């Protein structure tokens, strides 16, 4: 069955088509949820809610643009809504805005660890870092999505980078000391 046919059947609330769509995209979309959530369990909840929204809104999907991109947008929005009521930090330090470089031994630092430290970030920092560094949104777009100023977006990004860099360097030191 083609993707177009699958989408058409999902619009008719055909449960078999919905399951097939889930099986096809769950892995990729779960990865998105993991990056944006603060725990594995939260990520599972967000994946469920996100798919429920996808199945509801699929009636409005117009076959324009990438379907996977459309689903990913919904998933990101679902996770963002969970943390909408968080407070935001507004103090901007110009020096912090530079993108820090980190000395990295890629053989040591695994994706597992990178995932863990990104989930440990405060929610706002994690969201901004994901949206900017990994999903390519601009600060203007991020400010509209998160209802913050672009200044706040930049400072959140800067702080996220600093924390991640410090943790990456720390684990490398630790692992180097053990070996």
């Amino acid at each position, binding site marked *: 069955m083609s993707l177009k046919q699958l989408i058409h059947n999902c619009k008719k609330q055909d449960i078999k088509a919905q399951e097939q769509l889930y099986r096809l995209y769950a892995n990729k979309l779960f990865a998105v949820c993991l990056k944006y959530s603060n725990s594995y369990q939260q990520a599972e909840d967000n994946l469920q809610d996100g798919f429920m929204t996808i199945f509801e809104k699929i009636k409005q999907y117009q076959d324009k643009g990438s379907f996977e*991109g459309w689903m990913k947008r919904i998933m990101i929005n679902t996770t963002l809504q969970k943390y909408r009521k968080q407070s935001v930090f507004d103090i901007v330090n110009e020096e912090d805005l530079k993108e820090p470089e*980190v*000395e990295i031994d890629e053989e040591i630092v695994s994706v597992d660890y990178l995932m863990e430290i990104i989930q440990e970030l405060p929610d706002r920092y994690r969201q901004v870092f994901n949206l900017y560094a990994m999903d*390519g*949104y601009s600060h203007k777009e991020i400010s509209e999505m998160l209802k913050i100023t672009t200044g706040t977006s930049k400072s959140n990004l800067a702080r996220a980078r600093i924390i991640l860099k410090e943790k990456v360097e720390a684990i490398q030191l630790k692992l180097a000391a053990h*070996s």
Partner: protein
Amino acid sequence: MEEKKHIDRLYQEKFKDFEATPREAVWKNISTRLQQKDRNRKIIPLWYRIAGVAAVFALFFNFAIDLFKTPGSIPATAATTINKEGPKDLSIASASYNQNMFRSSLVLSALIQETKNLKAKEEALSAQNTENKIRNVSFVNIIKAPELIGSDNDAYTFSDYNSIALQNAEPREEEQPQDIELKPDFPAITLANEDVEDDVAVKNISKRMSVSTTAAPIMYDRPGSGSAIDAQFANNRSSSDVTMAYGVNFAYQISERIKVRSGISKVDFSYNTNDIAFTAAVNPVALSGVDYQGEVPNYRIENRSVRQFSNISASSEFNRASLASPTSGFINQRLGFIEVPLEIEYIIVDKKIGFNIIGGASTMFLDENMVSLNSSNFSTNLGEANNINNVSFTTNVGLGLDYNFSSQFQLNLEPIFKYQINAFNNSSGDMNPYYFGIYSGFSFKF
């Protein structure tokens, strides 16, 4: 191999093809929620249909009672028989109305309970699903000794994620890090705002139709001079009994602020001409406004303020009888109409409590028409009024107050004023009746 990298680049590269398989329980929860939604969608329309049928039956029962009355069953003559049971005819009619309203309200309260039960079940099920998730899954502590990874490929292995894609990760061709093009997949639009607007738009369009039942106590009056019964009563004191109207309305929301509605209802008026006196008489004079069914009853009905009796000189036995002291009482006119309104609701507030302005017109079809002579312990039908138009109109204006129990179910309270045009064809006088009702009822939106 150590190198300097920007932290962004590090994450981009590591997560480029990252995938993870969720537990099977996630799909089970999704499918349960989908099936529950599907079931709810099928059950609720069924209840709307039952509500519609119940409302139609309630109306039908009322009409059926009238249909089963055979014409001429009420004796209009017999001057000597005094109907001691008095206003029994009137009370039977209102008792049946009350009975029908009671039946309708029983059906409606059963529907309300069922809707509440369905909602409670859905909430209980979703709460249960949240609890059923395994709580003990935690992020595995990955600060451990590094695994030796071969240098001939760039695949990354995971200890905790069942990653299918990464097992098949393609080796990277370029040595230098490149700008990873992530953006083209995702159009640069304002997502948060767009979704909010979508939700608002969908909310407005989704439930446009509604059906509602109404019941109202009615206050009726005919200001102006004149009397529909007879010219001699033009200046008599008049009064009106509070009667009931009830019916079914259908509404369609054509825009965010405007609803058009129509329906059908039965409305009754009971209007009294007071301060009349009557006595048994051999040669009664017919009232000009009454169409007697059969013989004119042997009553002399006159305005009590007119003291004519004392001037009559009795020349015979029969005439002497007319000197008997008159009984005071009132003439009651009972009118029943089938009303078909066409109204517009202008919505001012549309939240949990809603407020709107109502305006429009109704067509009134005469259904019931009865004039009776009454005193404190006596009542007899005289006939029908002969000057009421079979079809007349009203102009309506009112306010509406709604309480939204849910997005589909609403309680309405609407005081509406209706001014009746061309009610009478050639009445003795210049009267324009109006009536005021406080319409209350329930609405279902779908």
